[in-house]
């Protein structure tokens, strides 16, 4: 059942017609040709499809496009300004935070969303004192990034990259 929706993706407004069954991920990739978010498991288990929805990190594979009519979506490709890379993307390059690169756009979006959550003093599973200011150490980074799987095992580089952004 077709519905016409609008999405603002990486600053650009698009109108597109989708079947109600279309996920946000398929609408971005197949509907709009925005290939930065990746389809990994397609079941919300790997994090490769992570995008920012109004600034919050979410899984585009479990979101229905029709339920996000009018939404503002930022993908990893839309984080930088022109040729200037976003600091998180720059740090991934500097720290070898990837090997094959398939999970990387999701990792970067997740890291950007996660850093904003930490900025808002959101605690995590490893935060000892739920009422004290959050101190972002390696354990915090690892816990908060646990929803993004990297099959190449580039985790030390990913943790290093995020740690540098935090410094």
């Amino acid at each position, binding site marked *: *059942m077709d*519905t016409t929706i609008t999405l603002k993706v990486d600053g650009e407004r698009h109108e597109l017609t989708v*079947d*109600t*069954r279309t*996920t946000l991920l398929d609408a971005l990739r197949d509907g709009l040709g925005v290939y930065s978010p990746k389809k990994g498991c*397609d*079941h*919300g288990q790997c*994090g490769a499809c*992570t995008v920012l929805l109004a600034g*919050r*990190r*979410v*899984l585009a594979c*479990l*979101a*229905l496009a*029709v*339920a996000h009519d009018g939404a503002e979506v930022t993908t990893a490709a839309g984080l930088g300004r022109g040729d200037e890379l976003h600091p998180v993307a720059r740090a991934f390059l500097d720290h070898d935070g990837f090997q094959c690169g398939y999970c990387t756009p999701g990792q970067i979006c*997740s890291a950007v*969303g*996660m850093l904003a*959550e930490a900025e*808002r*003093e*959101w*605690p*995590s*599973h490893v*935060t000892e004192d*739920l*009422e004290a200011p959050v101190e972002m150490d390696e354990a915090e980074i*690892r*816990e*908060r*990034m*646990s*929803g*993004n799987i990297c099959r190449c095992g580039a985790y030390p580089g990913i943790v290093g990259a995020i740690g540098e952004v935090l410094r």
Partner: protein
Amino acid sequence: MIPFVYSRPGDAAEAVEAVAGDPGATFLAGGTNLVDHMKLGIASPTALVDVREVVDDAVEELPGGGVRIGAGTTNSELAAHPLVRRRYPLLSSALLAGASGQLRNMATTGGNLLQRTRCVYFQDVTTPCNKREPGSGCSALEGHGRDNAVLGASERCVATHPSDMAVAMLALDAEVRVLGPSGERRVPLADFHRLPGAEPERDTVLEHGELITAVDLPAPQEGARSTYRKVRERASYAFALVSVAALVSVRGGQIADTRIAFGGVAHAPWRARRAEEVLRGRPVTETAFRVAAEAEFAEARTGRDNAFKVPLAINTCAAVLRSLTEVNG
């Protein structure tokens, strides 16, 4: 996935009417469980009624010291809310032990209570499962049984409830507010989830068309210490093998009051009333902790693969009680 009609009702009553009047309709909130089930063929609704804009997403103080959690509050907002962190830290801990940052940003309070089992056979439409297809049989009884329930199961279903949040809410004596075609009702969380019995396809006492609008938590117990401990096979992003939510108040070296709930052991979050009864009025000793936990699991039934859950649950419960009653801990 079969085609479906998507709608956004104007208010909660309209949402209830839309679902109650259509046997093929279902509510959509965060979608983290439902959309996946639609992809897998576990759920095949012909109409989705999006309730994200018609249920409250605020956490408010109630007169008397409790709080009301709007059913649309996301797991991440709830875990981070200052009132929850201060008054009900075990609820924050339970939420933060569940899923991933992305999923917590999508999943809602109402949806979390309604999430379905992660039993591998329930999720695999090529195998018999009484919960997914009533009368087809239970594959988990003879198959991979590591996740199976040890308390309250039936010969029809040995699935476990996967929520962390609900286990903490159960220990907190939460009450679920529900809107249905004939008005509002309140259901204590302790009566909300069902044991499988002869109808494992029914996870909760909700009727078709009833919508969770909020969860109320009573005022926190003065002087009680509390925690949530989850045991799982990875350090993060995994369902519980066993989890324990507990609150304990100690006066004069005796346990004045305690409330304990288990996750990962039954078809529903499991309130440990027997263990609580054993502990009340007893001196704080390791023996008391163990006797209480053992009493709770006295009637546990285990299979080939899940016998480990009983000692794991008893040991975890005793460890939690020890940590909550240490003088300087």
